[in-house]
């Protein structure tokens, strides 16, 4: 269980929250605190008050893969191959294992042709794909994905959804502004002004959001 107890960080306040394994998606207005919440989940920020815990450990003691909402802030290395290899190299994986995992990962994500490309020359969507693949290449227990889909086409979003679901990561915490994607999650958190206003399964949360721009368009059209 991922838990928040008495957590405060700047304008974000989460008095008590327990997230079981699965895909949890944050939705809400710009500036609501979604990225801050995700940084606390990833251990990039630590709460000013309170405690974030993942199965009894702090996020910084947990294997976490993280994707920043700014695609360029994810890329550390020149080539796509080096970027994908970086989490493996940081944990001193052998060259043979690194090569094997990078090739396999590129195949899963359908970007074998990008491996030798300069990461700075990629399109926005390609940068997002590289960031996603890099975050998951060591199969971390937690994937924290901030607006990972903002530059992806519908087909790549579907591929990403499929790969994420089969990643084996017990916890996937993400935020998106694509409500159709959010509707596929195990649970939703709707944040507004630094507070979790609605939490629960998509049907329950979207029922609270009926009539707002956050209600999925396709749900309006359901027979």
């Amino acid at each position, binding site marked *: 269980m991922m838990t928040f107890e008495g957590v405060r960080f700047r304008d974000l306040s989460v008095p008590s929250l327990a997230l079981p394994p699965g895909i949890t998606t944050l939705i809400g207005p*710009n500036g609501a605190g*979604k990225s801050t919440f995700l940084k606390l989940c990833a251990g990039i920020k630590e709460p000013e008050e309170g405690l974030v815990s993942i199965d009894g450990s702090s996020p910084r003691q947990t294997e976490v893969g993280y994707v920043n909402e700014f695609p360029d802030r994810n890329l550390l290395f020149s080539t796509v191959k080096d970027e994908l290899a970086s989490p493996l190299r940081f944990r001193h994986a052998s060259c043979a294992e690194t090569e094997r995992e990078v090739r396999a990962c590129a195949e899963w994500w359908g970007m074998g042709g990008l491996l030798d490309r300069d990461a700075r020359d990629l399109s*926005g969507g390609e940068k997002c794909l590289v960031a996603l693949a890099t975050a998951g290449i060591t199969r971390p227990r937690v994937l924290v994905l901030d*607006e990972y889909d903002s*530059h992806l086409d519908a*087909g790549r979003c579907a591929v990403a959804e499929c790969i994420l679901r089969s990643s084996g990561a017990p916890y996937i915490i993400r935020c998106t*502004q*694509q409500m159709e994607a959010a509707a596929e999650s195990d649970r939703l958190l709707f944040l507004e002004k630094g507070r979790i206003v609605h939490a629960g399964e998509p049907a329950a949360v979207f029922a609270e959001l009926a009539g*707002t721009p956050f209600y999925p368009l396709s749900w*309006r059209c359901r027979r």
Partner: protein
Amino acid sequence: MRLVLDSIALARPHWSLAAGGTFEPGIHLVSGDVGSGKSTLALIMAGLAAPDRGAVSRDGIGQVMLSFQFPEFHITGFSVADECRSWNLEPEAVLASAGIVVSPERSALSLSRGELKRLHLTCLLSREYDLLLLDEPFSSLDCPGKEWAAGEISRRRRGITVVFTHEQSIFPHTDHIWEIREGILTDCGAMPGALRAWEHAPAIIQRLVAEGCIPDDLTKESVVEAACRMQE
């Protein structure tokens, strides 16, 4: 006023792009897969990149503006106030219009990406252009922000507006649809007939077309109206 792509072509080691066609005044939508060359096409249309072959002519077009897909690329001022003033706009008015509740003295690059996009679009859309190229204007915006941006773009009935987007739910009023297929810019035609030829159409649009309930436009109101017809 018109923008003509005269058999332009661009080849790179890993991809290529070919495009021909005329963009008349109105709102054009261009879709295509990740890495298909939409942003490069936008640069070429803006005159910021040159094709390997062919020519771009901008007949009667004076003012050109390109909005990059990454709003952070546009920031020239250190603070939010500096950024607004660089557009000759009053910071308080911009923040109110953008719906952002932050101090004008805050560092622009400390805003959330969605807030940054709102700030950038509010500044950019405050002016008139003969040719306005918007690369992924909806990315990072929240749902109310997307509806606001779609409304602002829809009001631009003067000049040529080209929207390059992956957006699947919220669109502005659209006159014409194009898409990049296998490296070639393809003219799907004028609305609403273009919807029948649009291979990258969002799932909801594909379903409406399959059911014969073709919306007149891509605005949310038109799509919901067509969906209601389908439900009858």
